[in-house]
């Protein structure tokens, strides 16, 4: 099953127990706005916490197969509530901070583009889309296109570009936003054969 808010809360609480503040990003943050569920939990920690993350948490019995490749630490987390382990990806915000420091980026997102949710401090969707614009692999543009097909407002893309402007990543973000637009056209997203609900004003996504 997809990761529920309750499960994400359990992961965030785990980090809190280890004195590591986290920001929930990735699909969980999109789901919080009513979209398709995700299968993992993606988190930002401050850059100053990223380097010491393995020492801080890998000794805990709930953490399995901790490993770091570049700016991403991955592990499986054993949930108390279910007899399954879920994938947790922890990202170093340095990768997304452009001309500024990773900690500046973390603080900026915390202060201006996130909110307190039941699960923990949650990045707004534009932050998720901003990260998806900066990851080189094309599939991340597909994730944005899929969100749009599932009802996410295209305006989130404009807000993602505002974040890009703040961190000097406008050029790359804009060119990849264009990729999304082209993809929407190629795949016919937004037109038939999928159609929105009728007779009920509430769509799958809440507009902010």
């Amino acid at each position, binding site marked *: *099953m*997809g990761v529920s808010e309750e499960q994400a809360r359990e992961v965030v609480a785990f980090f809190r127990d280890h004195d590591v503040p986290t920001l929930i990003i990735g699909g969980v943050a999109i*789901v919080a706005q*009513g979209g*398709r*569920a995700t*299968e*993992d939990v993606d988190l930002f920690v401050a850059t100053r916490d990223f380097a010491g993350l393995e020492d801080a948490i890998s000794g805990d019995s709930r953490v*399995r*197969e901790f490993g770091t490749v570049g700016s991403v630490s991955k592990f*499986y987390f*054993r949930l108390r509530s279910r*007899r*399954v*382990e*879920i*994938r947790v990806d922890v990202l170093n915000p340095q990768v997304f901070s452009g001309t500024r420091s990773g900690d500046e980026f973390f603080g900026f997102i915390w202060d201006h583009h996130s909110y307190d949710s039941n699960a923990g401090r949650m990045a707004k969707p534009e932050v998720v889309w901003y990260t998806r614009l900066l990851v*080189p*692999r*094309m*599939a*991340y543009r*597909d*994730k944005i296109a*899929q969100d749009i*097909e*599932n*009802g996410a407002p295209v305006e989130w893309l404009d807000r993602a570009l505002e974040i890009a402007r703040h961190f000097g990543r406008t050029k790359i973000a804009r060119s990849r936003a264009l990729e999304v637009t082209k*993809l929407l056209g*190629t*795949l*016919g997203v937004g037109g*038939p*054969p*999928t*159609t*929105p*609900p*009728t*007779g*009920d004003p*509430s*769509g*799958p996504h809440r507009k902010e």
Partner: protein
Amino acid sequence: MRADVSLVRLASDRTVPRDLFVPVVYSLAAPRKRFRLRVSSPSDVERAARFGVPLSLFEPSKVRALGYPVEFPPRLLVGRSVAEAVDGPYAKVLFSNEAAALHPRAEDLVVAMLFVDWLGARTLTRRNLDRLSLAYLGRRILEENAGARAYRVRLDQFVPEVPRVGTPLDRASLAELDATIYERAIGRGR
């Protein structure tokens, strides 16, 4: 001007539930009573299907049963010919093939997945290669005009009928999609 789609009662339909089939008033001179279908719940969908309306509910549980752990708001798989006459809270995935809309096979669920989460459709296909009829899947992808979506996630690697339309994902994306196991039962994979 626009087309106006409605449902009419067959001779075999003695009575139709009015909570489900809502009469549409045209004029007193109309030769046959016309209805719109209002489905608000899974049981409504089942009841409507029993009247032969080509539709079924595409629920995440059906995808999870095929080995892909995912959650999404249920969609209505509905035959294109009647889709305009169906109201309710569900977003629709329109199928040209009405039999597939009414009784979707695993391959039809892959096609439906292409319209909900095409990245997931690749995972679904890879995890079920031994149970899918790839020939049927190929026909269905073409029938539902899902070729560009299927090629985007390189389903042509498994289904040769998939047309090469548009730009496929890069290798790094495909490798990441294929390698990722998000959730596992405790005791596996250590």
